[in-house]
C-alpha cells in the first residue's frame, strides 16, 4: 500500500511540477506582451536581433528548404507512380512546402540556431551579473533583452518561411525538371494554379507563432539559468527542446484550426 502511495505521489509531483512550469512560462509570455505594448522600446537592440535571427538564419533555412523540396518531389513522384498520379508532383510539393514543411522545418532550424543562442547569451549574462547590472542602470531586463528578441523573431520567422517556401518549391522544380523530366513551364503553371492564398497565409501565420515561441523559450530559459557553465548548458538544452516541442504541438493545433473539415 505504501509503495502504491509513493508511486502515485511521485506521479503527482511530476504533474504538479509540469503545471507550475506551464504557469511560469505563461506568466513570462504575458509579461513579455505587456512590455511590448509599453514604452520604452529599444530600437537598436531590435535591429540587432532582426539581423541575428532573420538575416543570419537565411542560409540554414534556405538549404533545409532546398533539399526538402527536392526530396519531396522524388517521394511524391515515387508514391504517385503507384496510381498513375505523377502529374500531381508540382502542386503537392508546393502545398506541402507552404502549409507544413516550410514553416515546421524552418521553425525547427531557427529553434536550433536561435533559441540556443538566446538562452546561452542571456544565461551567461545572468551568471555574470550583467542582468543585475542592467537593473542597477535603470533598465528593465525584459524590455532590453526579451522584447526586442521576441518581436524580431515574430516578424522575421514568417519572412524566413516565405523565403524557405520559395526555395523549397524551387528545389522541387529543379528535381522535377532535371531528374523527373517534367516540362519546366508546365511544372511552374501547375505550381501556381493549385496554390491558394490561404495555403501560403496559413504557413506565414504559423511562422509568426513559431518565431514568438522560439524567442520566448530562449529568453525564458536564459533568465531561469542556474549558476555556472552547467546551468547555462542546461538552459540552452531546455530552450531548444521546449521550442521544438512547442513548434510541433502548436503546428498541430494551428492546422486543426485552419484546415479541419
Amino acid at each position, binding site marked *: 500500500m505504501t509503495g502504491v502511495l509513493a508511486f502515485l505521489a511521485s506521479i503527482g509531483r511530476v504533474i504538479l511540477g509540469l503545471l507550475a512550469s506551464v504557469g511560469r512560462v505563461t506568466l513570462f509570455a504575458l509579461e513579455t506582451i505587456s512590455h511590448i505594448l509599453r514604452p520604452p522600446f529599444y530600437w537598436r537592440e531590435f535591429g540587432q536581433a532582426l539581423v541575428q535571427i532573420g538575416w543570419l538564419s537565411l542560409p540554414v533555412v534556405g538549404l533545409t528548404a532546398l533539399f526538402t523540396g527536392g526530396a519531396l518531389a522524388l517521394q511524391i513522384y515515387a508514391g504517385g507512380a503507384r496510381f498513375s498520379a505523377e502529374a500531381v508532383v508540382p502542386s503537392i510539393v508546393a502545398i506541402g512546402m507552404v502549409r507544413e514543411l516550410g514553416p515546421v522545418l524552418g521553425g525547427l532550424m531557427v529553434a536550433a540556431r536561435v533559441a540556443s543562442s538566446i538562452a546561452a547569451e542571456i544565461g551567461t549574462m545572468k551568471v555574470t551579473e550583467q542582468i543585475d547590472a542592467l537593473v542597477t*542602470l*535603470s533598465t528593465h531586463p525584459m524590455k532590453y533583452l526579451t522584447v526586442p528578441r521576441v518581436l524580431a523573431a515574430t516578424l522575421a520567422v514568417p519572412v524566413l518561411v516565405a523565403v524557405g517556401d520559395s526555395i523549397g518549391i524551387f528545389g522541387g522544380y529543379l528535381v522535377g525538371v532535371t531528374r523527373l523530366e517534367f516540362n519546366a513551364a508546365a511544372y511552374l503553371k501547375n505550381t501556381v494554379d493549385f496554390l491558394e492564398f490561404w495555403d501560403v497565409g496559413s504557413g506565414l501565420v504559423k511562422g509568426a507563432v513559431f518565431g514568438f515561441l522560439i524567442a520566448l523559450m530562449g529568453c525564458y530559459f536564459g533568465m531561469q539559468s542556474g549558476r555556472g557553465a552547467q546551468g547555462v548548458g542546461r538552459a540552452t538544452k531546455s530552450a531548444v527542446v521546449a521550442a521544438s516541442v512547442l513548434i510541433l504541438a502548436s503546428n498541430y493545433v494551428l492546422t486543426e484550426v485552419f484546415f479541419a473539415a
Partner: protein
Amino acid sequence: MITLNGIHKSFGNNQVLRGVDLHVPTSESMVIIGGSGTGKSVTIKTVLGLVEPDRGKIEVDGQNVAKADRDAFLARFGMLFQGGALFDSLPVWQNVAFRLMRGALKKPKDEARTIAIEKLRRVGLKEDVADRFPAELSGGMQKRVGLARAIAAEPEIIFFDEPTTGLDPIMSGVINDLIREIVVEMGATTMTITHDMTSVRTIADRVAMLHDGVIQWTGRLDEMDTANDLYLQQFIHGRAEGPIEAVR
C-alpha cells in the same frame, strides 16, 4: 543615509540574513567584511531591490525603498560588480555611458561618449580603450571600466562588491586608491564588500562585520584594531583558531 532594520532573507532552507541592522551615514564609506557565504552581497542587493528581503525595512534618506519609485531611486545609485558585469556586446565607452544613452538621463550620443572618455581617464584608462570590447581587456582594466560605469552618472550612493578580487596586489592598490579618491571627490555615500583587509584600511570610514546572518560588530575604522570582539579580531588577523569555524 542608508538604514537597514531587521533584514531577514532565506533561500530555501538556507537562512542567510537573520536580522541585519546597519546604519550608513551620508557621505561616509562603510565597508562590510565577513567570511564567504555570510550574506554580504545579499545585503547590498536587498538595498538595490535585486533581492527582496523576507522581513525588515530599508530606508534611504528616510524613504522606504520598497515604496520608492524604482527609476528615480536607482538613478541615485552606481554599482561596481565583483566580476565587472560589463556588457560583452557593447564597446567600452557604451558600457560606461550606458545610463547616459537611455531613460531619464539620456544625452546626445557625442556628449555621452565625451563623458565616458572623461570617466575612463578618471580611472586611469586611455581614450583608445573606449572602442574596444570588454573581452579584449585584462581583469584590472575591466574593473576600472566597471568603476567608470559606476561613477558615470555621478551617483549619490555607490556600492562596490569585492572590488579587488582576482587582481594582483599592485592593481588592487590602484583600485583601492581610485575608490578612495572618487569617494572623497564626489562626496558619495558608499558601501563596499570585501575580504581584503588592505582595501578595508584604504577605503573605509566605518567597518561592519557580518557573521552568521547578523552584524557582529560595527564601528569606526580607527576602533577596529582595538575592538574587544573575538570574531572581528580572528577575521582581521586571518587566524584559523577562534570562534569562527574555519570549515563552513
